[in-house]
């Protein structure tokens, strides 16, 4: 097989587009873990719910941009309810319990979508304004995937601005550093955790509606995605946002390049990457050391 520079370049861009979706997913997961020390096993399910909700709003309003705005709000709201009534009672019981609870929750969410939207899933297509492929010089690349890369960049930037430049973002960062002190300083830390959980799940839902045009939307679509999200979050470091973004891109590129040279090993390669990182540097790129049970 001939590997030309243009093929490599196109493969790289593909990897970055893949990585963008991974990064978005990992951000939500990492945020929730960093702040609440909760491993959200329902993350893939929220992604899937986002895809369905997004398509529903698209069908209702006919406008893709509306659904982009509404979906994370709806999914985030579900996240808020989840945190308040299902996860909050479990704090202080150890790291395993919220993990197990969200595991059960994922089953319920999947079945709920089956009941609401049917077992076969719903057809999704690229919004008309983003259809078609663009000639990048070294190959044709779908316009929509370029949009995905752009959208991810915008979301990451917005999140960064929120965390670094706003007062509430400061509170969130402080809370993840030391919740006790925040409480002492008079901050309602429970409310902060609630909001963060909502943001995390909202972003998961947003990645779902963004990913929906590129793949089949069915109730099982989140299961596959969950394992990949964990790989990325671990590699980047649980609790680190720049880590999630970097790791997302790295995993996307690794997967893409492995697919070029040894396609049947591509999926295995990301798990090997995960194992290697965990064994050599468990906190990943930028994770906090000592984040244990």
């Amino acid at each position, binding site marked *: 097989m001939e590997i030309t520079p243009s093929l490599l370049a196109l493969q790289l861009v593909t990897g970055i587009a893949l990585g963008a979706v991974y990064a978005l997913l990992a951000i939500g997961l990492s945020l929730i873990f960093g702040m609440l020390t909760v491993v959200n096993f329902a993350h893939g399910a929220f992604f899937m719910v986002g895809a369905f909700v997004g398509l529903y709003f698209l069908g209702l309003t006919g406008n893709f941009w509306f659904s982009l705005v509404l979906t994370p709000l709806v999914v985030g709201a579900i996240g808020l309810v989840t945190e308040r009534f299902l996860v909050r009672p479990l704090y202080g019981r150890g790291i395993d319990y919220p993990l197990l609870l969200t595991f*059960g929750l994922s089953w319920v969410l999947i079945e709920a979508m089956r009941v609401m939207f049917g077992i076969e899933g719903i057809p999704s297509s690229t919004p008309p304004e983003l259809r078609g492929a663009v000639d990048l010089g070294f190959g044709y690349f779908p316009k929509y995937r370029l949009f995905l890369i752009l959208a991810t960049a915008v979301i990451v930037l917005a999140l960064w601005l929120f965390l670094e430049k706003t007062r509430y973002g400061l509170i969130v960062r402080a809370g993840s550093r030391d919740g006790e002190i925040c409480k002492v300083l008079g901050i309602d830390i429970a409310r902060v955790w609630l909001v963060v959980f909502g943001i995390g799940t909202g972003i998961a839902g947003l990645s779902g509606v963004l990913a929906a045009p590129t793949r089949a939307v069915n109730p099982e679509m989140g299961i596959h995605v969950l394992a990949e999200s964990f790989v990325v979050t671990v590699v980047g470091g649980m609790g680190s946002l720049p880590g999630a973004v970097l790791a997302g891109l790295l995993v996307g590129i690794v997967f893409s390049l492995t697919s070029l040279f040894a396609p049947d090993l591509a999926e295995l390669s990301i798990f090997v990457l995960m194992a290697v990182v965990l064994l050599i540097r468990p906190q990943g790129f930028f994770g906090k050391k000592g984040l244990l049970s």
Partner: protein
Amino acid sequence: MRDLFALVKRHRVAAVLLFLLVFPLLMPYHALAINILLFGLFAVGFNLLFGYTGLLSFGHAAFLGVGSYLTGIALVHGGWPWWLAMVAGVAAAGVAGLVIGFLAIRTRGIYFSMVTLALGQIVYYAFYKAERWTGGENGLRGIQVPEIHLGPWVLDFINPVTKYYVILAFVAVALWFVSRILASPFGAVIEAVRENDRRAAACGYDVARTKLLVFVLSALICGLAGALRALHLSIVPIDSLHYLLSGQAVMMCLLGGMGTFFGPFVGAAVFLTLEDVATVFTKHWMAIVGAVFMVFVLFFPSGMWGTLVKRLERVR
């Protein structure tokens, strides 16, 4: 009541076995009863690591699967007699436990869980790709053990009741083994590690070696469950190695009660029966099982058996 309970606790293995002896009469069909035996054993093996040592592994399906596959491969490709094939399966699971355990115990907490997940998936892909030996996605077929010869007796292994009691014999031995471990000084060290492993280290125990040893023991038990499962189903499906099966072990232990001897069995019985019954009534069994599970996590963290034990212990 209290005296009865104390008696049961002292002879827990005998009590469990007594229950399991009459179990087939309670169950409407034997394949379910056998599945409960097998998954109960799997959960007991898993519980050794999870409930008693406090290490949540998400890759335990690897040991069940390795036990199943190596038993199957020895039977189908090697032509070994069934009992020797089982030895191969269990031994292989033990080796897998040694390797994975050695790598995994270098990490702690949530990273331990993640690394077991990753390593378990690597084992899954390895067996998936080795199509010539394992049948890949089609599974390993050709495991046929129609009869078991024990000296002068010939047992019809296809008869479900006979099969149940043969498997029960193995499960009984394994349960006795686990009970002995837990009652021994080593058992106390395990629980000490769960409560506070730094402190256990400070007291002079070799925590790493303890963890590794428990890992291997757990793998051996799960491997035995796998070997028996291969003989029961006559095939080894590829999802024996998938993390969803590992997740089921966690669910069963939680439903039944981690850190109790009989809890995992109860959990396995409840989980499998619930799935079975729910499937008969509705297509939405997944929501029901998921909801029940959430209820248990929130309100009965000690599981069904664990809560019962706690209640009985409080009656004074």
